[in-house]
């Protein structure tokens, strides 16, 4: 019984950061039809920026108001998004919208290559640590095991983000317009929707979510080169399994992937690495549109 709890909790913790990042990827695909290979880079840049922010904050005013460090991290992610989002969408991607969708994948791959090195050039190759926020919530005891409170904060954050996104898309006017664009871009444009504005905003939100995921994971890890490469794969897997463009799908898929990994780690360590790709391959083989698919199936 304890094992089950451990697996569920570990899975949930994993699922949280995966969801935050993957939902950004799926949103970008849903609205702009871009399969963003550079998504992991936004995560990494968010992590580095947060590490910087944390470093600055806690050596200054932060000592007296430690909780506000979380705000500093959020601001860091926001800055990343505001700087990169509009710049990339207007300054790079839009020149390729009229071409085959695969061309955009290649462009994001080229962007990935560029950002990988840009990150190294800006922040160097040595690891950064931003551990201060990790202790903000103390420890939580469940059964015989102690968990770090911060991890549960992350779970809460993921849930809040999921709800806010869902509400934003389904209950606000602008949100419904975004859903319309996801569902049928041509129709929306014909109906007078300012698709350009929706593109820039949606892409920026997507970048923000990735950066946020990176920023709030930073306290748990050492921020160093190589993050982007792994993160993008996980977000891909989740987005594909959940259905590209579906927020609900990303949520469920994150849970599935998180728990699958936890299962593997505890019960079958040899499968830890490939269980995610196995799930992805199986989903593609059996139901390529994913669990939920708001966009038309583009299998053939």
């Amino acid at each position: 019984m304890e094992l089950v709890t451990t697996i569920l909790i570990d899975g949930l913790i994993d699922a949280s950061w995966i969801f935050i990042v993957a939902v950004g990827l799926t949103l970008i695909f849903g609205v702009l039809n871009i399969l963003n290979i550079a998504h992991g880079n936004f995560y990494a840049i968010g992590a580095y920026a947060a590490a910087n922010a944390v470093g600055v904050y806690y050596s200054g005013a932060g000592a007296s108001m430690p909780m506000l460090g979380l705000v500093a991290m959020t601001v860091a992610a926001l800055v990343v998004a505001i700087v990169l989002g509009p710049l990339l969408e207007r300054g790079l991607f839009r020149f390729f919208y009229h071409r085959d969708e695969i061309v955009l994948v290649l462009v994001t791959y080229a962007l990935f290559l560029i950002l990988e090195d840009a990150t190294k050039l800006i922040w160097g190759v040595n690891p950064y640590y931003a551990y201060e926020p990790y202790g903000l919530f103390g420890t939580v005891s469940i059964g015989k095991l102690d968990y770090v409170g911060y991890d549960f904060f992350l779970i809460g954050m993921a849930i809040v983000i999921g709800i806010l996104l869902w509400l934003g898309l389904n209950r606000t006017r602008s949100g419904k317009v975004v859903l319309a664009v996801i569902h049928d871009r041509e129709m929306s444009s014909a109906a007078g929707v300012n698709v350009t504005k929706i593109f820039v905003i949606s892409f920026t939100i997507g970048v923000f979510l990735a950066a946020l995921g990176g920023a709030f994971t930073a306290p748990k890890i050492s921020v160093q080169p190589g993050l982007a490469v792994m993160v993008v794969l996980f977000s891909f897997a989740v987005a594909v399994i959940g259905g590209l463009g579906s927020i609900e799908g990303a949520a469920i898929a994150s849970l599935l992937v998180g728990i699958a990994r936890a299962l593997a780690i505890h019960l079958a360590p040899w499968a830890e690495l490939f269980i995610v790709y196995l799930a992805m391959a199986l989903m593609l083989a059996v139901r390529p549109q994913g669990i939920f698919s708001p966009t038309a199936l583009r299998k053939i």
Partner: protein
Amino acid sequence: MLSRLMVWLLAGVTLAILVALGEVLPSWCVFLLVTAAAKGLAALGLVLVIRTGLLSFGQGLFYCAGGYGAGLLMLWGGITDMTLLVLAGGAVALLFGLLTAPLLASYRGIFFATLTLALSMLMHGALTKADFLGGSDGLNLHSPTLFGLRPASAAEAVHMLYLFSSVLVVAVAVACRRHFDSLRGLLSLATRDNEIRVEYLGASVSRVISENFVAAAFLGGVGGALNAIAVGHIDPELAFWTTSGEFVFVAILSGYLSVAAVFASSILLELIRSFSSQYFPNAWQMSLGIFMLASILFLPNGIGGLIVRRKACDPGKDPA
């Protein structure tokens, strides 16, 4: 379109030039050409797939299969002859190709790309955890031989490998050029342009795609085997998605019209990598990225489009 005679003539001249270069170039340069040949072969396989209208982000699967096929044959089977090892690598990759093609042939666009990526990462994950295959560290290989000849020094070993690769590359290049110019080659391009029309002419698009895919797998394996022998090491990284990404880079830079362009682009990749690792180690990927963007923007048919004169046409944006 080159006549048969021209192709053989060019092949002969190229081989002669390559052999001559091998005599005058320093050893590190010669080695670079060998690794460029290996990657070029794999990228050429990817080009075959691109010619049917698909982009694979998993060519690394076959590159890795070929590397491990050759490597294990050497370590467990005691075979050291380059020719046998390369053929074995190709055969193992071919097998994987035959197994995966039926599943993949019904996918297009983003889904095809993601599925190939997933399959390649599956192999990576499996190999990383397979301790009896070396796990994430991989395995070191012995020195290869050629037709019973054992090289006396390291420089001689590189030279021997280089001569072997040159012959291999020229032979493969001739075969591919003939394929490009043949009816089969045309059918691949026709499939890329309009699958519906191909079906309504009575041909199976699935078959065209599968056959090209399996051939691509074989080439990927041959390249992987050559690389394994040259570098003397195999590890799961060969199947990681960034390895596949390198082949994508080469294929996009070269375009799908010219075989020579593929190897030229591969040499460029190796040059950028080794040059920058000396002088600016944290900017070589950026250089690749910039090259790629430039190519996508300004050379829709790649470098090959400059060699094989053909006006750029993107059927995706044609109004009719």
